[in-house]
């Protein structure tokens, strides 16, 4: 991570338009963003360059996201956030078991995605401001939720 940058992000998703939009947004927000559109390209970029965090899709044609996740985790280079279109709990459990730092569901707002990145960078000890509150904030549960009446 350069001094001017909030962090360097490797983006891996076969939806090129989406990755490009992510990339533009993060650059505008002070990050270094590297878009890749194939799992293999993402893996090669990870092996050649240094990133602070990766955001990967879980369903790509050339390699399943879980395979890519396992490979990236094995390299122990940087934390990996999964951004997935799959809402199945077993897939989420498997991703977390493999070592994903976060599991976000598409569609995520850019604020949600950035909050997750900030949390992960903060947890990995990088000099990034403390995580923002979630996009929706936290809300107090109704007063009767835990009582008996």
């Amino acid at each position, binding site marked *: 991570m350069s001094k001017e940058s909030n962090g360097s992000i490797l983006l891996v998703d076969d939806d090129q338009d989406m990755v490009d939009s992510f990339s533009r947004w993060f650059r505008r927000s002070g990050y270094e963003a590297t878009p890749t559109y194939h799992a293999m390209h993402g893996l090669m970029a990870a092996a050649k360059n240094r990133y602070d965090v990766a955001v990967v899709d879980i369903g790509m044609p050339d390699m399943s996201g879980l395979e890519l996740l396992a490979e990236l985790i094995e390299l122990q280079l940087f934390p990996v956030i999964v951004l997935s279109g799959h809402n199945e709990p077993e897939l989420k459990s498997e991703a977390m078991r493999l070592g994903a730092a976060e599991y976000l569901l*598409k569609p995520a707002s850019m604020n949600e995605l950035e909050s997750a990145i900030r949390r992960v960078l903060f947890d990995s000890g990088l000099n990034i401001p403390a995580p923002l509150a979630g996009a929706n904030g936290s*809300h*107090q549960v109704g007063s009767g*939720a835990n009582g008996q009446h």
Partner: protein
Amino acid sequence: MANTEDCRILIVDDDKDICENLKQILTMDGYEVHTVNSVAEARLVDWGKYFAIIVDRRLSDGASDVLIPEIKSQSPTTAIIVITGCPDLHASLKALRQGVEDYFLKPLDVDVLRASLTQIVRTRHAERRAAEAERLAVIGQMMAGIAHESRNAIQRIQTGADMLKLDVSDPELVCHIEKITQANHDLKAMLDEIRDYAAPLNLTRNEVDLSSVWRRAWENVVSVGSHNDANLFENTNNHDLNCSVDDFRLEQVFRNIFENSISACATAPSIQIECFDLNGASVGANDGNIKVVIRDNGPGFAKEIKERQKIFEPFFTTKQKGTGLGMAIVKRTVEAHGGSVAIGDGSASGAEIIISMPRRSNNN
């Protein structure tokens, strides 16, 4: 008879008396019976209109052995019953190998023939039901696939709107961007519901405390919808609520019910949850069934909705927003757990939903 496809029978026999007798008997049973007396006449008939063809093995102008493959080729679903006056093991074996449903000797035992026809009708119904279920499963998979595949497109819309927000400060334009974001959110919610309803429901059961499931659902509903004035009151009487359920799916059940209740209440939604066993006493035993009653302080259901339990029908909704699948998902999920859900007939003025569910899978 269920429909006309299952009531037409063709009799092919050169013995006109047999034709007439069988026609009278089977007509009284409700079948529509046509008769022909030769292979040549039989060939002029559209076999596809008949669910069963009763054919004599030896006809004046040929044998059924010739006719059967022709019928099977042109109308594979038509059942064939062979009748014969000459017991012949080889002939009967050949007929069965040709795919005939039954083979009877003359003089005919009419009751046995009737039983055979009834069985054929039942089998046809079962086959049609299975084909319909398969068709619906394919549609369901397709819908689930569409809902899933649209996530990337929805993500692109979201990201595009977020990008625009970086550059736009004009309040009117910001308002338009917010409308795009909201529409995108609504579309996502609708596709999520369709996917949840259409996708195959494979339960992953975990041992959980049921109250932890509805509390998670409550926290989610209150936080996402910013319903800070909503309150949940529980009456579990400190009893053990452990059960083996798919807590992820069941959380959605409670979420859908809570969302319905909150949207129905004009101000300060107040929702009560009470647990019973199915005999009416509060839950106490570790096994058996749990009954959860959820009441709200809204206007309740109209009489007709209550009587016909309409809210559980897919695409039924009284709201301006939503797919009308929320409560259908509730019903499907609860029934997948071996339970049932109904609108209560309680004296409470608000809506009352009653879920009855076994603590454990009946397959355990």
